[in-house]
């Protein structure tokens, strides 16, 4: 329908060139202004240990590694009653949605030296997913890593689309119906 003029072809070549240069810069990781990992960053290896202590920077890498999948993040703690109450829903959700290419991360804000408490809880609840204790006392620092403004209240569950953009934040207890409804809308 259109016949591209020489001018148009040059514009297109310019765009391609600029994008190419930028992609190269990103891929070699020289874009230091952007702390976020590129979309093709390797996913952090899932440890065989069900409970691991991580930092906010690790959390950011884990989410970056899951790009391309719908991602659900749950912040919780063993001392938090509604968090404990929603665990069976999260377990069911994980079992049913993992085969559907949905990534789920449970980040505990328990004190890192309470690892034994978290470990015991994980075993008692027979949780099917690994738990990461985030060694971070500042909700704003973790909030930056997960691209969500946090009040500090737990539980909170955040839903991300395949591009890694947060699409829904649920503060307070969640049930299976809401988990599946939110994720189904993003799949």
């Amino acid at each position, binding site marked *: 329908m259109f016949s591209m003029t020489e*001018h148009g072809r040059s514009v297109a070549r*310019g765009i391609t060139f600029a994008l190419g240069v*930028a992609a190269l810069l990103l891929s070699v990781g020289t874009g230091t202004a952007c702390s976020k990992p590129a979309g093709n960053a390797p996913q952090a290896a899932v440890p065989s240990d069900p409970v691991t202590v991580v930092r906010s920077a690790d959390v950011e890498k884990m989410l970056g590694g899951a790009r391309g999948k719908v991602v659900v993040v749950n912040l919780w703690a063993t001392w938090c009653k509604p968090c404990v109450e929603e665990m069976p829903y999260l377990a069911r959700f994980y079992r049913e949605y993992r085969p559907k290419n949905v990534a789920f991360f449970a980040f505990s804000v328990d004190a890192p030296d309470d690892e034994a408490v978290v470990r015991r809880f994980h075993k008692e609840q027979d949780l099917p997913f690994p738990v990461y204790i985030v060694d971070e006392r500042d909700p704003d620092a973790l909030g930056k890593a997960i691209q969500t403004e946090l009040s500090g*209240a737990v539980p909170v569950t955040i839903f991300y689309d395949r591009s890694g953009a947060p699409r829904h*934040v649920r503060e307070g207890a969640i049930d299976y119906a809401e988990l599946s409804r939110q994720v189904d809308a993003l799949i």
Partner: protein
Amino acid sequence: MQKEAMRIGMAVGIFALLGLACWYLGFAGVPKASAAVELGAEMPNFALKDVNGKEHTLEQYRGKVVVLDFCSHECPWSRGADPHLAALVKEYADKGVVFLGIDSHHQTTTEAIKKYAEEKGLTHPILKDVNNEYADAVGAKVTPEIFVIDKEGKLRYHGAFDNRTKPEEKGSEFYIKMAIDAVLAGKDPDPQQVKAWGCTIKRVSK
């Protein structure tokens, strides 16, 4: 001509990329927390009843330093801070500092709060914030969440009780006490705002 076109193309490409980067790094589509009262701004008034049915307003305490503690006897962090709060209430009893607990949880009853306060020997009034209206007005989200208000009714400190990492162990930085001392001395607290992990204020659906 061709060079110029190439330049235009490059500019368009770079702008497109910058736009994409901003969108990618941004907080697109995420609801922000409801606006809290700005530091230094006047705190909204309230008229709330304590667990004995006595009404308190913020205005009635004008001329005194007021400490508001959004609390919940169901929250381990709030419960854990209560003995340390009770000690502060005693310590500042004759220094013109008023301590008020505010329970905004929709499912807690005044009877249950009263029973808890008696058991724990809490002597400061605990007010029931029906339908979490005052929590909404000041943007309180977490328990415990502290607001230190100066004698003119202005907010001077907002946030964590202290920097504890476990519900029942006192932290090394006693933010609430530091703020009270600073305000009594006519100075700005340092820090003035601290976020911390805690329990959700369970609100009514509106």
